[in-house]
Each structure stands twice: as C-alpha cells, then as structure tokens.
C-alpha cells in the first residue's frame, strides 16, 4: 500500500501546497493495455478520455487550488484566502469560503483537497469543542493546531491537506500555526499556503516586518492575495494542461 501510494504521490511537491494527485489511477496501465488490445473502451473509475461521454473533470477530485495567508499582529490575527475551488480546469465553486471557524476565536485556512480539508476541519471542530467543554475555558490556538497536526500526520499517506491555523487566546495573544502537507507543525508570525503561495514569497519577505498594526496587516494580506491570484490566473491561461491551478 505504501509503495503504490508513494507512486501516486510522486507528482506532489512536498514544500508548497501544490496539488493534483489523481487518486484513482492505480492499476491503469494494465487495463489500458488490455483495452487497447481488445479495441474496447474501458469504464468505471479509470475512464479513457477518447471513448468517454462523461468528461474527465467530472471524476476528478475537487481541489482548492488556492492562496491562503495568515498574519499575526499585536492583539490578534488577520487571515485571508481566495475563493476558487476547481476540478481539473473547471471551477466548481467560485465563491468558496476557505476560512473555516473551528471555535469562537480560532479559524483555519484550508488548501489542498476540498474533501480532505472539510473532513479534517469537522473532526477537529468536534474534538476542540469537546475539549473546551471539559476545560470550561476557551481553548488555546496551540491546542487546535496540535489537533490538526495529529490527524494530518497520522494519515499523511492518505490525505492532501495544507492548513493554516490562526486565532487568539488569552495566554499568547494572536498566533499563526502552519500545518502543511505531511503534518509538520510550526508557529510563524506570518504564513502563506496553497499552490498560489509560490508567487508571493518574495513579496512577503520584502514587505512584512514585525510590529505591523491591524490595518497594515489587512492591506498586506489584500495586496499579497491579489498578486497571487493574478499570477495564478496568468499561469492557468498559459499552461492549461498543467496540474496546478
């Protein structure tokens, strides 16, 4: 199982949140060879494009080809995301809300597979809610981040989820934690994620400095996300057969 999933995941790059593994493609080659030999179209999950009435993108996994961002400031956090969910080259939802509340003062920014991130967010919301009731206190952002890490790391072979956990608690104020694909956990003052984040690392490095005010953070986030979305739009135009969107 590990070997086959490694083969599947070989198209993933580990560092940024770029996605597009085609999960259901194991064992395709043998069937396709047999089908070609028999001159018979093959159906089921692994459908050949040539003989297919139902186009490829209807069976593709839905991914949030995304740009997400979170910035700490004194007294809280600013989070932002674009609103596009794609299946292949088709935009399945152009008004997606990728900023999901986990608790009253804790949010998560989702990137990667829409199904995986929604499922993980639901599980963590339940776990954190339960924990908070037990504690009789608002939960810590670090707790939420560790819950995400626990799920993302344990099932790292099966999941494609890049998540930014951001929120405010009384103990440490505004915090941003990054849980990328693979299940690492690290706290950062500012973090970007998703396949569009590659375009704005330079912008972030040169424009972010510690000690920004809330309004400055809002402006920075808006500017960075607009840049990333513009760049991703042009990339899609140029390379329509590309895996990232």
């Amino acid at each position, binding site marked *: 199982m590990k070997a086959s999933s490694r083969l599947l995941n070989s198209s993933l790059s580990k560092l940024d949140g770029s996605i597009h593994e085609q999960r*259901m493609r194991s064992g395709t080659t043998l069937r396709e060879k047999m089908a070609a030999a028999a001159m018979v179209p093959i159906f089921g999950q692994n459908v050949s494009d040539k003989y297919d009435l139902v186009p490829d993108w209807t069976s593709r996994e839905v991914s949030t080809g995304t740009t997400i961002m979170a910035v700490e400031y004194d007294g809280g956090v600013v989070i932002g995301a674009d609103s596009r969910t794609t299946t292949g080259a088709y935009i399945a939802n152009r008004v997606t809300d990728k900023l999901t509340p986990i608790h009253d003062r804790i949010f998560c920014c989702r990137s990667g597979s829409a*199904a995986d991130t929604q499922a993980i967010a639901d599980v963590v919301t339940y776990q954190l809610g339960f924990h908070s009731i037990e504690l009789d206190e608002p939960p810590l952002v670090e707790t939420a981040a560790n819950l995400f890490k*626990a799920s993302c790391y344990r099932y790292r072979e099966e999941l494609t989820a890049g998540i930014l956990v951001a929120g405010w608690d009384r103990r440490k104020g505004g915090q941003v934690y990054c849980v990328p694909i693979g299940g690492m956990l690290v706290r950062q003052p500012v973090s970007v994620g998703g396949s569009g984040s590659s375009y704005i690392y330079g912008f972030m490095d040169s424009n972010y400095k510690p000690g920004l005010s809330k309004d400055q953070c809002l402006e920075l986030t808006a500017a960075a996300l607009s840049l990333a979305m513009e760049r991703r739009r042009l990339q899609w135009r140029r390379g329509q057969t590309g895996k990232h969107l």
Partner: protein
Amino acid sequence: CLRLFSGIWSQLCKCLFKSLFFLTITFIFRNALLEGEANKVGCSLPAARKTGTTICGVVFKDGIVLGADTRATEGMIVADKNCSKIHYISPNIYCCGAGTAADTEMTTQIISSNLELHALSTGRLPRVATANRMLKQMLFRYQGYIGAALVLGGVDCNGPHLYSIYPHGSTDKLPYVTMGSGSLAAMAVFEDRYKPDMEEEDAKRLVRDAIAAGIFNDLGSGSNIDLCVITKGKVDYIRPHDEANKKGVRTGDYKYKRGTTGVLTKAVTPLALEVVEETVQTMDTS
C-alpha cells in the same frame, strides 16, 4: 498541559478516524486484490452504468427547484431512456444524482433510511444539513470509490437549503448548483439568468432551460426534463415536466390488406396430437 490531554486526543482520534479510515483501507486492499485476480485470468470487471447527466438545483423565494434529465448511458449506448434521477430522501428533502447509477440510487436510499430513523428519534422534521453531513461522511469514508455526485435540496425549519456533494466527500452550500457531464452547459444558463429571490414560475423556467441546455449540448444527457419543486409543506414532483425529445410517430405502415398478394395453391395438414401423460402438482399456497 498537552501531555495531560494527549491520552484523550489519541482516543478521540482513534475513535473517529478509525471509523473513517479503517473501512477505507480494507476496501482498497480487497478490491485491488480482486481486480488483480480478475485481470490475471483475462476478465475485466463489469462496467458500471453511469448516468452521463445534467442535474441542477436553484433556490428561489419560497423554496427549491431541482431538475434532471432522464438518460442513463452504458458507454455509448443509452441504457434507459426515461430513468428517474431525482431521489426521495425525506418528505421535505430530495436529491438529484449524477455519476454511477447504482451508487447514487443506493447511497440516497441508505441515507433516506437512516434519516427516517433519525427523525423518529428526534421527533422533528429532518434538516437538509443533517442529510448533507450523513452523505458527505459516507462518501469520504469510501474515498471517492462511490461515484455519486449529488445535488441535495430541501426546505426545513431554517428555510430552503441547496448543497452540491462531490464523490470524494466535499460539499458546497450555494444558491444554484449543477452537476454531471452537462453541468457546464447548465451552469452557463444559470450564470446568465439567475437572480436571487425569483418567483416559482421563473425558477422552474430557469431550471428547465438549464437542463435543456445540458440535453441538447451534451451527448451524455437526453430525453425528458424532470422537475421537483419543494416549498414549505408541499412537494411537486413533476415527471416529466417537459418531453424535450419525443419519439417520432411513424408515417408509413408495413401492414397490407388480405388479397394484396395472390394465393396460387393452398394445402392444409392437420397434426394429430395425443395426450401421453397428464400429471397434477399442487402448489402449497398457504
């Protein structure tokens, strides 16, 4: 502090995710093995019948309008010219299904059954969000191997709700959704003419036009247009709402009058049949 709760976390994680993933892993192993064995012998597994489909839904002022075409395809052949793609979930919730026909049928039936038990347990009319949760958790558990892409719509105590549910288990809550192979054609119509808070007739016309766009521009969709209008306290299941593709009537006839062909000779041979054996077997119908 973290160490204190690590025990509880791991328990919770194990409980929830084990139920989520345990079945997944066993199924992946088992099915892959079966397919491998079948291929070794030289057989290929039977093709799943897909509903190359156009389904859509829209929220209007008083409720939801769901629409679907009625063609089910098996590869390049139309397997069913008039299949029903709008499935019953509960008295106030209906679900259109695209993808593998068996998967949509069975999934909606399972969730309908569970939802009825749930409603009896709570003593309340079921909510669309509940149906959505049940469907997405089941589809996620099967990691996309259940090829069911659904448009779930209904009216409950919190108003009308419309969800699109993808085979891998992601859902979107939107005012208008389309799914299936004809979804692009239908979405084009929606993006052009959708307005919030439409009247019922406008909404029905919009959905009808969207499905018609799918039927006429997509090879996987065809035949008639079914509609389902759900409002608070009333469901209008209109099947068919519009027979967009009526089968033509033959203008000619191959029957000829007696005497058209002249008879030259006629010979009649009676065959003598005799009863050899007669037995009576009574059937126990008690």
